[in-house]
């Protein structure tokens, strides 16, 4: 019940999808659509786990008065305040939309853009030429950056052509090899899961 049940569910969930897809099993019953919908609905509900975990973590911070506990208060107020408004109204109108447009979209792109400063400092350390590999990585990155930006062609005519060749030939070959390897690895893992050989997900759910 505690171990065999979930393993049977796991194998069945995969096999039903595979048989519905390849052999059209249950097509008249709309099996594939139903299975997709069940997955979307059940997995969507798990989003609350993230909210609960955040609440537990930050409520502990507040109760124990840890360092920066005031930030935890702000997080909890913002989370539950926005949740109440967005569930009561909708995310696409009123105050939730106002906050989304002015705060969330702005903060998202600002946080992403800030990473560029840390990437540059990390790149400076990483690309100091210690080996052939580091030199090649740095060289390709510089060629790509200058090739994408207009300054590359302005400084050296034809620079973007070099960038295009790098992207179309060696980069594509490397990426295709990586992708084929990743697909094969994903298949191997999927088969191991369906056969019940991969049981890592069974470890955290009780004694």
């Amino acid at each position, binding site marked *: 019940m*505690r171990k065999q049940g979930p393993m049977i569910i*796991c194998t069945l969930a995969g096999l039903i*999808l*595979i048989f519905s*897809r390849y052999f059209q099993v249950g097509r008249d019953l709309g099996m594939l659509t139903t299975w997709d919908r*069940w*997955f*979307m609905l*059940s*997995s969507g*509900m*798990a*989003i609350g786990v993230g909210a609960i975990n*955040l609440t537990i973590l930050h409520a502990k911070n507040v109760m124990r008065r840890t360092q920066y506990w005031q*930030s935890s208060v*702000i997080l909890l107020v913002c989370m*539950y*305040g*926005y949740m109440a408004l967005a*569930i009561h109204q*909708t995310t696409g109108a009123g105050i*939730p939309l106002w*906050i989304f447009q*002015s*705060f*969330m979209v*702005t*903060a998202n792109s*600002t946080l*992403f853009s*800030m990473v560029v*400063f840390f*990437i540059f400092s990390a*790149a400076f350390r990483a690309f100091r030429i210690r080996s052939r590999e580091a030199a*090649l*990585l740095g060289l*390709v*990155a*510089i*060629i*790509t*950056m200058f090739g*994408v930006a207009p300054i590359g062609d302005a400084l050296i005519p034809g620079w973007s052509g070099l960038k295009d060749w*790098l992207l*179309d*030939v*060696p*980069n594509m*070959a*490397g990426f*295709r*090899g*990586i992708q*084929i*390897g990743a*697909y094969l690895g994903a298949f191997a893992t999927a088969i191991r899961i*369906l056969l019940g050989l991969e049981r890592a997900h*069974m470890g955290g*759910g*009780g004694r």
Partner: protein
Amino acid sequence: MTQWQIIVAGLVTLGLYTYLWKDNPIYRTIEHAFVGFYTAYAVAMVYHNQVKPAVLNDLIRDGEAIVLIPLILGAMIYLRYLPQLSWVSRYPMSFWLGYGAGFVISYQIQPLIQQIRASFIPINSVNSFLIVVGILTTLMYFFFTWTVKDPVTHYGSKIGRYFIIVALGATFGNTVIFRVGLLMGRMQFLLFDLLRIGN
């Protein structure tokens, strides 16, 4: 955006950039509010797009009792917070994992075959030769099943490493450029929209 929205967006942008000086309460406040807002946003989206239509439309209006199965299955994940019943949360987890495994086998065969087919090209130029050699040697690099001692695979995997480095270097360059683009977007917003300078 309205004028007030522009002011709030400007303050958020400037407040977050204060982190470049050092960690400070303004940055922490905005960062924590951001995490809180986005979590709530995700929960509300799932509620409005998944749960509400399933309960109100399918279950109550159309009387489709079968929709209770995924709803109960999804709710079972919350039993992980009750130590005596936490094992029940393995059921939804197993369903998702099994579905994911089935999805990979059902839907990812096609892109794999497309990649392999695209690799079978006539070797009639230096570029096509480099592409074929690059793919084969990269695959040799990822061969971990047993220790390889033959010289072709041994040296092939070494060459493959250079192709992987080129791919990673190009990805790094593109990532930096994308982030620089975002930074320019924020600077343009601060100058043109908030301060109304130069536009």
